[in-house]
């Protein structure tokens, strides 16, 4: 307990100390896209460092652009004892007409001081059929940010919590990676805690990237304070058609006020007006987004470039080559970097334009993402090239992609990179390889990186589990196992009683045979005699030596001797071994009697 208090005090002191080192407020603004079309929303993010005590304008006030402050979040970080507080404010901007707009400096009132952002530019192209003006956020009970294509607002602002999946466009393309935000709104007067750290997706037809760590903010809607939790991710439609967006649910527990326990109602109604302080009900609340339909288009077949390898997004390419000089036969690595935003996972390598005089080997690739969901970044393809003829520059690389905003295929090229690559010494093999490139009508080249496979493993179209050989082999193994089990059981059944009987016979004969020895002490003599009788009893089915002797027919001389033997044995047992010594004649008679009954 004491440790907890001290640690809290230490953290508070650290915050206070760090607060003194806090820097003066600065402000910056970025726009999510420089170009858009009518009806297609973009985001403007304003970051205020150094303070969170700021007053932000509700809109940007640019004629022709609908704008609204739709998100706020706060970050506090301490680096090397220096505390930085930042406020991040997001405006959703929806263009109403085409043109080039300048968003003027946004004036921020930070702790009484007015500071301004740099101006921003936005080019708006004519609206495509995909783009249509999105509805305004409802005045009452509407979810903030729903000006973008998102799930509808809650039916009433009295809801404890609701969620919305914000998709930036009304129509998307199959295979396109679309960054989305999943926002959850929780009534600020009710404490919530998460049961799971990540939302759960239920639905089909879309794949979701991993969710980025959420950001938290506060919003006030119709005078009600809401805590918001925003997860960023990206979705990809796996097929075309009109499909519902999957529901994205967050499992939480809400602590709602509860009545005091029975019997305490009066006390609390007297002092607290009916509700017991601290008495809460924990109620599991599943907050989920609505399954709103979205149209997924197939990539158009018309205008598809020959080298299109499935990239959908917005990309630029740049090429470098190393080394700048290569001796005969040495490779030159041509690195083609594809940067931008889109489906880096699905894109193939760029195509080389007129690679005559070069032998091209299959490329390797690596991807470096610049955001936390892998939507933006750079994918670099490294292609080893070996000059077959003297060359002074690499071939150009050509990359085709589909731009979902412009809704058309785009092909971009790199410039040739100057290198000095020497031709290999003439040899028949090289001459043969170089020959096709020198012919005036080149034959169509195989796909880059594809090779004819020489070795072939014979296969059958009938799967192994349907082939008789599989079942015959398993049945044979099962039969052998059953056979072995059966044989073992039969052997035990056959050998069991006989073996047991033989063991008891051996035991009986051993004990009875030992009685003839004169060297046995009296106690040992009696023990051996009883062992022999006990073994005989087992062989005849009697419970023990006494029962066996009792069961013998009266009248026989041996029966009398055996009873005397048992009596003497009992005497010795109950007298602690101090009975009368055995006469030699007695020993002889009893040994004879035992031998007789055991015969």
């Amino acid at each position: 307990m004491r440790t907890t208090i001290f640690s809290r005090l230490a953290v508070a002191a650290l915050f206070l100390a760090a607060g003194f080192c806090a820097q003066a407020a600065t402000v910056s603004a970025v726009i999510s896209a420089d170009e858009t079309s009518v009806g297609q929303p973009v985001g403007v993010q304003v970051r205020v460092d150094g303070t969170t005590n700021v007053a932000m304008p509700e809109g940007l006030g640019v004629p022709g652009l609908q704008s609204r402050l739709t998100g706020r979040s706060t970050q506090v970080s301490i680096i090397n004892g220096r505390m930085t507080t930042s406020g991040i404010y997001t405006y959703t901007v929806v263009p109403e007409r085409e043109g080039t707009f300048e968003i003027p400096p946004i004036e921020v009132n930070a702790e009484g001081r007015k500071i301004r952002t740099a101006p921003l530019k936005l080019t708006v192209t004519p609206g495509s059929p995909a783009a249509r003006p999105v509805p305004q956020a409802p005045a009452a009970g509407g979810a903030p940010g729903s000006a973008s294509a998102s799930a509808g607002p809650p039916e009433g602002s009295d809801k404890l919590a609701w969620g919305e999946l914000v998709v930036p466009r009304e129509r998307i393309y199959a295979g396109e990676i679309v960054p989305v935000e999943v926002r959850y709104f929780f009534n600020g007067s009710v404490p919530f805690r998460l049961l799971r750290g990540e939302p759960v997706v239920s639905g089909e037809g879309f794949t979701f990237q991993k969710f980025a760590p959420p950001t938290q903010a506060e919003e006030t809607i119709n005078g009600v304070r809401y805590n918001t939790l925003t997860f960023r991710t990206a979705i990809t439609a796996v097929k075309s058609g009109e499909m519902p967006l999957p529901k994205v649910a967050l499992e939480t527990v809400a602590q709602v006020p509860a009545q005091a326990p029975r019997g305490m109602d009066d006390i609390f109604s007297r002092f607290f007006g009916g509700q017991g302080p601290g008495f809460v009900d924990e109620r599991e609340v599943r907050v989920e987004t609505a399954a709103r339909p979205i149209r997924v288009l197939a990539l158009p077949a018309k205008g598809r470039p020959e080298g299109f390898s499935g990239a959908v997004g917005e990309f630029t390419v740049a090429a470098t080559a190393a080394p700048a000089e290569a001796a005969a036969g040495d490779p030159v690595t041509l690195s083609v970097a594809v940067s931008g935003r889109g489906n880096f996972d699905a894109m193939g390598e760029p195509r080389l334009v007129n690679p005559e005089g070069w032998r091209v080997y299959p490329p390797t690739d690596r991807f470096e993402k610049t955001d936390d969901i892998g939507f933006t970044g750079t994918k670099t393809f490294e292609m080893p090239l070996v000059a077959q003829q003297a060359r002074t520059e690499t071939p150009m690389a050509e990359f085709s992609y589909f731009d979902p905003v412009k809704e058309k295929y785009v092909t971009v090229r790199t410039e040739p990179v100057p290198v000095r690559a020497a031709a290999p010494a003439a040899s028949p093999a090289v001459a043969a390889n170089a020959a096709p490139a020198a012919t005036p009508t080149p034959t169509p080249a195989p796909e880059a990186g594809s090779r004819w496979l020489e070795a072939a493993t014979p296969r059958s179209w009938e799967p192994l589990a349907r082939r008789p050989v599989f079942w015959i082999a398993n049945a044979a193994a099962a039969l052998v196992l059953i056979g072995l089990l059966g044989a073992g059981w039969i052997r035990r059944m056959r050998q069991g009683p006989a073996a047991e009987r033989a063991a008891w016979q051996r035991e009986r004969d051993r004990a009875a045979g030992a009685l003839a020895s004169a060297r046995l002490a009296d106690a040992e003599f009696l023990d051996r005699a009883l062992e022999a009788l006990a073994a005989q009893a087992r062989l005849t089915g009697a419970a023990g030596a006494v029962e066996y002797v009792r069961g013998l027919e009266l009248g026989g001389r041996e029966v009398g001797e055996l009873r005397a033997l048992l009596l003497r044995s009992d005497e010795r047992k109950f007298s602690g071994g101090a009975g009368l010594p055995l006469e030699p004649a007695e020993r002889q008679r009893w040994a004879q009697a035992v031998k007789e009954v055991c015969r």
Partner: protein
Amino acid sequence: MKAGIVILLMGFAALARADEAGAAFARGDFSAAAKAQEAELARQPSAEGYFNLGLARQNAGDPVGAILNYERALLLDPGLRDARNALSKLAAAQGVPAAPRTWREDVTGVVHPELLLTLGSTLAWVGAFGFLFASQSSRRIGLMTLAGLAVLAGSAAATAGWLAEARLAGVRPALVTAKEGAEVLSSPANNSSAILSVPAGTTLGVVSPRGAWSYVDLNGGVRGWVPTERLTPIIPGETL
């Protein structure tokens, strides 16, 4: 003796055909390469052979034929990376939406399902026999535990191999080979409403063929009706 010679001659003839296809491909005569490869595959199917046929078809300007043969190669050997890479690039270029990766692909990318089934069932039987013999041994507890674990591990591997085998799944794989693609309809009638349209080269699972119409399943779980004439079964010789 005669039979041996015949088999030997057939083997040489097959090698010659494979060489012929490879040589035609190398000189850029992709149609001849495809023809020779088809003849070879009719004699002896192989995943590599179907991949080569797909490559020849792709270079001959028949992307849908190439996709069909890449799919066939992957059905025979799901771990054939060349076929998987070529298929994903070609399908993307055709505008065929990428199917989400399944656990089946994760497993079969590492080990062939038939190998998993064979090794798993062998291990299970070895474990069962070991269990039997261990019960007679003086160190029976340790050996029986070991044998029991072998039975469990083998059974699990064999089950995984069985479930990972796409050819044992309940649906028959088929490819949309009609040039204009196909519309998946809500009922088997021309005037019924379209659920979605799929381009040529899309793989479907035929749940129930009904003559002129086939009830199909898409990877995402969407089901509907497609004219059977627009489909080609991925397993050669199978009828829809």
